[in-house]
């Protein structure tokens, strides 16, 4: 049984349909990537998984249990964490407080403040500063650390490389490898196809709200990916 299993998921923003019946799954311990162009519905998909968009109960199953449409805070409590697009650091909280609030549900597990600081030493140096006083890359590390503090069984990452310099993205992905190397089940959305291919066990490609491709990086050719990505 998959840890996360999504079946025929649709999503609407008022009259606009963003997702047209997406079905995918993530097994425990896997690292799964979702690639696709802007507006393909990738972020919408993650939002639906955590309950920020309405869904029928059976459309999303976590650990076999239907969670579609349940309140977000309940879903988080079950062990899913989302590192949102754009970081979304809390300006009124310090760096350390931003990390602490990630542990708001008090789920037990291996991640703690000390361990996050070990992974991202720069955060310890700046722990008393306001969360948004950090650079873009540091904020991304903070956002990831905040997500880890929830000790999630499934970690969702939305566009962690967006707006960051290549060197910074490199550091973040190195940290991510350490995180996934630990066995954290991860589902991540990424615009940078190369990065995605380098980290994931399997990937899905979205195109205008629909699944256009699925497979293992080694099994897919450049041409296949490009075709699925652009929908030609």
């Amino acid at each position, binding site marked *: 049984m998959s840890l996360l299993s999504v079946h025929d998921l649709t999503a609407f923003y008022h009259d606009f349909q963003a997702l047209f019946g997406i079905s995918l799954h993530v097994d425990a311990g896997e690292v799964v990537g979702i690639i696709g162009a802007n507006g393909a519905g990738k972020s919408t998909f993650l939002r639906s998984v*955590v309950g920020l968009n309405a869904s029928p109960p059976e459309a999303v199953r976590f650990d076999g249990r239907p969670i579609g449409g349940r309140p*977000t*805070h309940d879903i988080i409590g079950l062990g899913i964490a989302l590192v949102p697009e754009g970081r979304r650091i*809390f300006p009124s*909280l310090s760096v350390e407080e931003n990390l*602490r609030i990630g542990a*708001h549900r008090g789920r037990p597990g291996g991640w703690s403040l000390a361990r996050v600081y070990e992974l991202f030493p720069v955060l310890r140096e700046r722990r008393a500063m306001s969360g948004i006083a950090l650079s873009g890359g540091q904020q991304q590390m903070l956002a990831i650390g905040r997500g880890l503090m929830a000790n999630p069984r499934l970690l969702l990452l939305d566009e962690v490389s967006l707006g960051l310099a290549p060197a910074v993205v490199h550091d973040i992905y190195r940290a991510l490898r350490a995180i996934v190397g630990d066995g954290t089940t991860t589902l991540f959305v990424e615009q940078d196809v190369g990065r995605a291919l380098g980290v994931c066990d399997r990937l899905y490609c979205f195109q205008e709200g629909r699944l256009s491709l699925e497979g293992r990086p080694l099994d897919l050719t450049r041409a296949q990916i490009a075709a699925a990505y652009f929908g030609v």
Partner: protein
Amino acid sequence: MDWVNAVVQGVLLGGLYALFATGLSLVFGIMRVVNLAHGDFIILAAFLGVAVVGLTGVSPFLGLLVVVPVMLGLGYAIQRALLARVLDRGVLPPLLVTFGLSIIIQNALLQLFSADDRRLEVGGITTASIAITGQVAIGWYPLIVFVVGVLAIVGLQLLFFRTALGRAFRATADDPETARLMGINHRHTYAVAVAIAFGIIGLAGVFLGIRTTFSPDIGPGRLLVAFETVVIGGLGSLWGTLLGGVILGVAHTIGGKIDPAYRELTGHLVFLLVLLARPEGLFGRAVRET
């Protein structure tokens, strides 16, 4: 020397005004809602005190043990059942709903208790005083209220900056959607914030009722006092609220000393002056209301 006395009374009055203001700014700071019925809820609490005292014969101070929990529950219920429905609809609906509540409360109190002036009697303590010098005295009761006001502010500071709940308040005020991603039940969090604000309103109402006479129609005047206190002190600063209360209190007592009819007018004029000179208040950070 009479003037020094007036200033001292004004400073102590600031404690009561700070109590008025803290509830208002708490709700505004977290939810960006100005509760136009704020003053009327203060008076409601005072009349609750009247009812409790009338039914049980206990001292109004003990009556707080009933009034404050009732107000806590009332605040939670009003947020969950009513305000939550209009919070995300823009600026107008919450203002209009709370204005409707203001009118309902005033007239309901009028129906239940009549327009007569009331007072919560506690006996000698309201007139007892400590003589500082030959001519300056500090009333025990105003001192107690001032201390309660300071304790309320200290309590809120601790709550906001040293507890997980306070973190949740600040995060939800910043970004309710991302707060949900932290596992925070934002609906419950808002309701707890309003409950706490109403608890403080409960304190304020009873302490007001002990200090002075009150009637169903003086609610709006208390809203204006709370509002002016917050603006003078500056939004976003709890200690600023205390200072704002003190300044307004002194303005009222000095103005009232010149002529009883000028009491409120002096307060309004000081408020307008601060607004002209320093719109963000004396301790405020400039807050953009979106």
